[in-house]
């Protein structure tokens, strides 16, 4: 598409009749091909631009395709297990499969019950499972497990579509998902064989770190945001000091503080392993940013809402939690999801404190003497994987935004 003729809605345009396609300058009833020709080759300048960008696109596509085809990618598929779950013991693999089964069933049920963005999530997960299950070098065992996951998504969808009463149980099960799977992965504090966090790695560690940071920063961030608007000076200034202090130092610094200074001050006897210390650092860091996002939302609530709540006889706690916060959080969904995506990607910084997350594992593998210099395939794979899940998060956020703001349109 040529930028020259790009007319977004709302911008002044020459043609008065902008039709359903916002990008193409197209008259009503004008055939698509004709409009295309007019837009792309309408005048000399456009023709030159079209040809040049066309050539460039072909060149890039050719390079990408030949890169994909020329490399054998064995370095990726040989290390797929390392990339996905790190050094998690093989005998305990069933715990991870259980977590994946659980998630698949829940995604299916959610899709069936609420429709909407559940479809995109279900299809993305299904497609990733299918891709991994279908490639020839996956072991039969893994393929069967992945096929079962796809089956669970489909089964959940059918079940959810038929039985509407499942909504409450599904929400409860979603709430239990994180504590249950984390407990299972760790071994429920000794109930099962404990799997120490030093054996977590790859995508598993990335997801755990990001989930803990996102889930943990949420209550803390909201409290900080409320605290910053508090009329009690001590609460207010402690919150301001915290938020500004944390936002004023780089994440790497926070990680170093968690990793190096805490054990130095507490004498190395804290009993906290390095993964836990990283989790704490991420939670505290993300909370400060979330607090500012939420504060933005709180400020956007017109004072009429407070007055109306007061007139109805609601006390301060009820006003905050039932009237103000829901509206404030809804208003800042895009900012919050932006933060969450950033957190997911920022977990790769744990490489500097010796943890092997998804990207760190790729770097480790590229330093195996047998695969020296094979980093490009690994990095491309890692980038693609990150992209799929970050984009999915953004997509779901856009959907939530749309569906939650239906009332105000």
């Amino acid at each position, binding site marked *: 598409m040529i930028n020259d003729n790009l007319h977004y809605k709302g911008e002044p345009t020459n043609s008065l009749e902008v039709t359903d396609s916002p990008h193409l300058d197209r008259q009503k009833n004008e055939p698509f091909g004709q409009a295309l020709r007019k837009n792309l080759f309408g005048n000399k300048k456009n023709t030159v631009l079209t040809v040049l960008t066309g050539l460039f696109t072909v060149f890039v596509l050719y390079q990408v395709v030949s890169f994909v085809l020329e490399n054998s990618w064995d370095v990726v598929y040989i290390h797929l*297990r390392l990339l996905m779950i790190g*050094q998690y013991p093989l005998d305990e693999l069933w715990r991870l499969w259980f977590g994946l089964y659980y998630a698949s069933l829940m995604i299916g049920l959610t899709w069936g019950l609420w429709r909407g963005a559940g479809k995109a999530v279900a299809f993305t997960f299904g497609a990733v499972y299918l891709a991994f299950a279908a490639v020839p070098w996956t072991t039969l065992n893994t393929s069967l497990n992945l096929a079962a996951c796809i089956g669970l998504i489909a089964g959940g969808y059918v079940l959810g579509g038929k039985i509407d009463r499942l909504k409450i149980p599904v929400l409860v099960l979603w709430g239990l998902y994180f504590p249950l799977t984390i407990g299972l992965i760790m071994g429920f504090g000794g109930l099962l064989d404990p799997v120490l966090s030093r054996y977590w790695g790859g995508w598993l560690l990335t997801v755990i770190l990001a989930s803990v940071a996102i889930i943990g920063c949420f209550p803390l961030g909201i409290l900080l945001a409320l605290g910053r608007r508090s009329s009690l000076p*001590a609460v207010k200034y402690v919150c301001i000091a915290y938020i500004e202090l944390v936002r004023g130092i780089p994440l790497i610094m926070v990680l170093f503080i968690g990793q190096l200074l805490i*054990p130095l001050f507490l004498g190395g006897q804290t009993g906290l392993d390095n993964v836990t210390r990283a989790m704490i650092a991420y939670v505290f860091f993300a909370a400060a940013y979330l607090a500012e996002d939420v504060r933005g939302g709180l400020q956007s609530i017109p004072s009429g809402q407070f007055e109306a709540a007061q007139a109805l006889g609601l006390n301060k706690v009820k006003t905050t939690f039932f009237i103000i916060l829901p509206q404030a959080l809804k208003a800042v969904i895009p900012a919050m999801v932006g933060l969450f995506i950033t957190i997911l990607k920022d977990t790769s910084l744990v490489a500097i404190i*010796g943890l092997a997350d998804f990207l760190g594992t790729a770097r480790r593998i590229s330093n195996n003497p047998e695969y*020296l210099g094979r980093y490009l395939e690994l990095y491309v794979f890692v980038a693609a994987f990150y992209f799929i899940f970050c984009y999915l998060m953004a997509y779901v956020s856009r959907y939530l935004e749309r569906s939650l703001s239906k009332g105000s349109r």
Partner: protein
Amino acid sequence: MKNYSKYLLSAAALLTLTACAGGTDEAEGVDGDNAAATSGETLSAVLDRGELNAGVNDQLPGFGYVDSDGNYTGFDIDFAKAIAAGVLGDAEAVNYRPLSAQERFTAVQTGEVDVLLRNTTWTASRDTEVGLDFAPVTFYDGQGMMVGADSGVSSLEDLEGMIIGVETGTTTELNLADQMEALGVSYETQTFDDRDALIAAYESGSVDAWTTDRSGLVSAFAVLDDPDAHVILEDTLSKEPLAPAVLHGDDQWNDVVSWIVFALIQAEEFGITQDNVDDFLDSDDPDIRRLLGVEDDLGGYLGLESDFAYQAILQVGNYGEIYDRHLGPDTQFDLPRGMNALYQDGGLHYSMPFR
């Protein structure tokens, strides 16, 4: 009045906060006894734990890396295994703690790792100010320089006016500056965040030469498109003796680590290998009998089992075997022993006598 109560409340809140903070400190049970380790403490901690905490590198080809099955492996890793075999009788009783260059010393200082086996150069400041003690050198390295074979460069002086690539945040950059200043050679540096990028830049010709430890240069031959088109200069820019490090102050633990390293070197001197060590148990040579713990109880003096050296050799192999396994002719590095040969072969490795 109303305002007053607000401030009172705030003060009360602050007091509670500080009280809480004080309370947790006590609850954590901080015993600040780790900073200055007392003799024997680490050994008994390791024996109680039944596991050796070893700080290692997980991204250095040949020395410390993770193989395709997810196991730590490499030259440095084998020394961790040997220490575990000597102390605990089980080479697999190691908790590997991958450390970044930035956090490695703190990990020793806080007692998070018992021994640091992470290609660490033995320097005066690390031995004193950083608070480490070093066991015998396991690998003598030195900084070298790689140039194109047809570049006409045969010594550091020939690099006048050229662009040299180095990795950021390493001592290599400082060594390079020192050497070139001493020689009066002007040059330009280009710094890179990682080795792969540096090698790619060198191959594409955007830097004329690049420098790192010789072992690193040699291992890069495995990556280069045309290895024959490149040479390593004879000149050495710095001494890089890589040695295991422990926390300063625990002499007994330092002795343990040191004599396990010596045992591996001594075993190579005697020709004792992983495969034939059992045959040497009936040896008549008193030196060998003492090393393997058949005679006397040198292990007992260290606080170990008398067969500590036997276990280390049996489970891991002698120094030469470790070297060959990870860096020798059968690996793609094919790194000549050079300074790392035994003293009788013109190298620097020399075990103090087991007596």
